[in-house]
């Protein structure tokens, strides 16, 4: 009888713990900056398979922080940027965000580029009620995690559609697709491309690979056999480098095209294998807009190199966040969240930016062609 009683008490006790734990989870109201500084977290792939994503984004964010602090900071306080490296790994992204929230008590978080990592870490931010602003994660699901997650870029339904329209405009009647099935970004973009391309031509081949694969020749040989006019490869630049080299070795000479995952200094260094290829991107540094040209000049002065699109979206996202803090009037998470949601015509370097009710930014997209290590803007399309 005593044992039974004890068992009962233990069960009820642990149930109670569980319930109180649940209650604790729901009460995430974020953090407030009380000191003389506003702590802002950043997590990104500073190293690993997609290192240039994180490094470029960080350079852009750092530039925005330096400029803002030099101009007197926000609400009379200096911005303190705390950066965590996730090594291009999803589980590291989750623990990086947890560190930023629990140890550094940040009021808002900037990051990631890769949609897969933004999705994983976004769940944590949502749980704690910390607003997260992704500079360049384009998968639609990222901001669907919850009302704390925002992005400062377009989404893949738009990007995939533009890719498909571009293929139709180029009169590519036979398209092959090569997707990374382990990557939310790549799968999503391929899906929206397929939808957009329907009725415009034939999808002659729809191949896939897995993150971490390094040999693509078997798939490329199949693609070669179907004789496509172009190949859509919505992957990240590390894979694209290997894919393009192997494709050219096999004698596939048709253009490849993809999305903003191609954006990296490494893609431009690939040499002749990437000549004549296209990709859709957030912006082009040849855009004559004065705000962008000023950013390009400032970036060159600080880092001695041209910014890529990840650097520019990083800069814009940081500036948008600081503007939201200013509009909120208080450096606390829930006010920042509301201010971000109410963003209208924020003067970003690439043009006015508005956050829609789904917490996505409405921004034009550009199509770039790579020729001799240079990006040539082909056209710019504004969402309807």
């Amino acid at each position, binding site marked *: 009888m005593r044992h039974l009683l004890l068992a009962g008490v233990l069960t009820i006790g642990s149930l109670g713990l569980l319930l109180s734990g649940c209650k604790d989870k729901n009460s995430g109201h974020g953090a407030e900056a009380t000191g003389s500084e506003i702590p802002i977290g950043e997590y990104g792939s500073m190293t690993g398979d997609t290192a240039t994503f994180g490094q470029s984004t960080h350079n852009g964010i750092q530039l925005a922080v330096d400029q803002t602090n030099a101009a007197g900071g926000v609400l009379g306080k200096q911005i303190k940027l705390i950066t965590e490296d996730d090594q291009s790994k999803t589980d590291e992204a989750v623990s990086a965000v947890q560190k930023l929230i629990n140890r550094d008590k940040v009021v808002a978080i900037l990051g990631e580029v890769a949609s897969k990592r933004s999705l994983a870490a976004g769940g944590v931010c949502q749980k704690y009620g910390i607003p997260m602003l992704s500079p360049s994660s384009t998968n639609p699901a990222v901001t669907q995690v919850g009302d704390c997650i925002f992005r400062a870029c377009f989404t893949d339904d738009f990007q995939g559609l533009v890719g498909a329209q571009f293929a139709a405009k180029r009169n590519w009647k036979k398209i092959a697709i090569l997707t990374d099935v382990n990557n939310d970004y790549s799968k999503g973009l391929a899906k929206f491309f397929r939808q957009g391309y329907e009725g415009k031509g034939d999808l002659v081949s729809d*191949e896939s690979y897995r993150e971490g694969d390094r040999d693509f*020749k078997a798939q490329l040989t199949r693609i070669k056999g179907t004789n496509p006019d172009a190949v859509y490869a919505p992957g990240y630049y*590390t894979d694209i480098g290997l894919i393009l080299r192997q494709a050219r070795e096999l004698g596939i000479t048709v253009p490849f095209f993809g999305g903003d995952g191609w954006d990296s200094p490494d893609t431009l260094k690939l040499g002749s294998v990437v000549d004549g290829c296209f990709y859709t991107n957030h912006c082009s540094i040849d855009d004559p807009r004065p705000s962008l040209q000023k950013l390009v000049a400032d970036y060159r002065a600080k880092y001695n190199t041209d910014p890529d699109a990840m650097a520019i979206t990083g800069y814009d996202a940081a500036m948008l966040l600081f503007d939201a803090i200013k509009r909120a009037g208080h450096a606390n998470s829930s006010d920042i969240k509301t201010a971000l949601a109410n963003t209208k015509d924020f003067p970003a370097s690439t043009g006015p930016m508005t956050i829609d009710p789904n917490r996505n930014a409405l921004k034009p997209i550009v199509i770039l062609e790579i020729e001799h290590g240079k990006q040539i803007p082909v056209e710019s399309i504004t969402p309807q």
Partner: protein
Amino acid sequence: MQVLIQQLIIGLSIGSTYALIALGYTMVYGVLRLINFAHGDVYMVGAVAGYYISTWTLGIGLSLWLSLTLTFAGSILTCAILGFLIEYLAYRPLRNRPRLVLLITAIGVSLLLENLAQLPKLFGPTPRTYPDSVKHALSATLNCPFLPAGVTLTQFDLLSLTLSLLLMIYMTYVVMKTRTGLALRAVSHRFDTASLMGVNTGRIISFTFMFGSGLAAVAGVLDGIRYDVRPLMGIMFGLKAFVAAVLGGIGSIPGAVVGGLVLGMTETLVKAYLPSQYTGYADAVAFVILILILLIKPTGLFGRNITEKV
């Protein structure tokens, strides 16, 4: 037909590096009955060492072929020393402990190497590529009159296949025809008795580890040039090579090579003939096929059934 030939060439080319790594697994298993899980990471160290040597020698202006020779030689030397150290420091002190202790130590060594390579001071987690001139030279397409039009064979495919076959023949020669090989076979046959007959078992085991690690280094440099160098590249390739060794019959030298080539070709053919949306899952399918082969022939293709005396 043309596509099939192309896919077979690709499969052989991939399989030849599996074979090189599998040889190391098989040798160590033959002598110590130990599955050396750190072997895949020795392959990674080979790629990393080769990367540094290649970048450095080309940087000081050596000719391409001289640099390539030095790259292979230097990488083999590095890995041989590493193999020696792993055995001497990690496995030798545990020689008389239960087999499980050794196995867990092997996993520990593997994790150690992977994490050391991820330190930015040593290599870092960012993939790096060998110098462009090396990549270009080896990816040149060869003109083969006996191949149908449209099928490409690169220098690389030929080099990796020739190297692994030559090294296999050399290894068989060493094991079958030299005194060291005789001692090696004796140790493999019965460890204690070999020792009683005057075989320096410690030296033979060191030799086995060094030889196997050298072969892994060759595979590492080949894959480093063909793809890129990553600190975790040894996990999947090591696992596949291990499967190749088991498939060929672990302990058998020709078995390791045939197992590697069969695995490479299975993998490629699965990718080539699976419905196209599923090609990303080819590894899983290839492994299932291998399980089926092992169910039918549990000792592997070249393995012999040995009844244990009690």
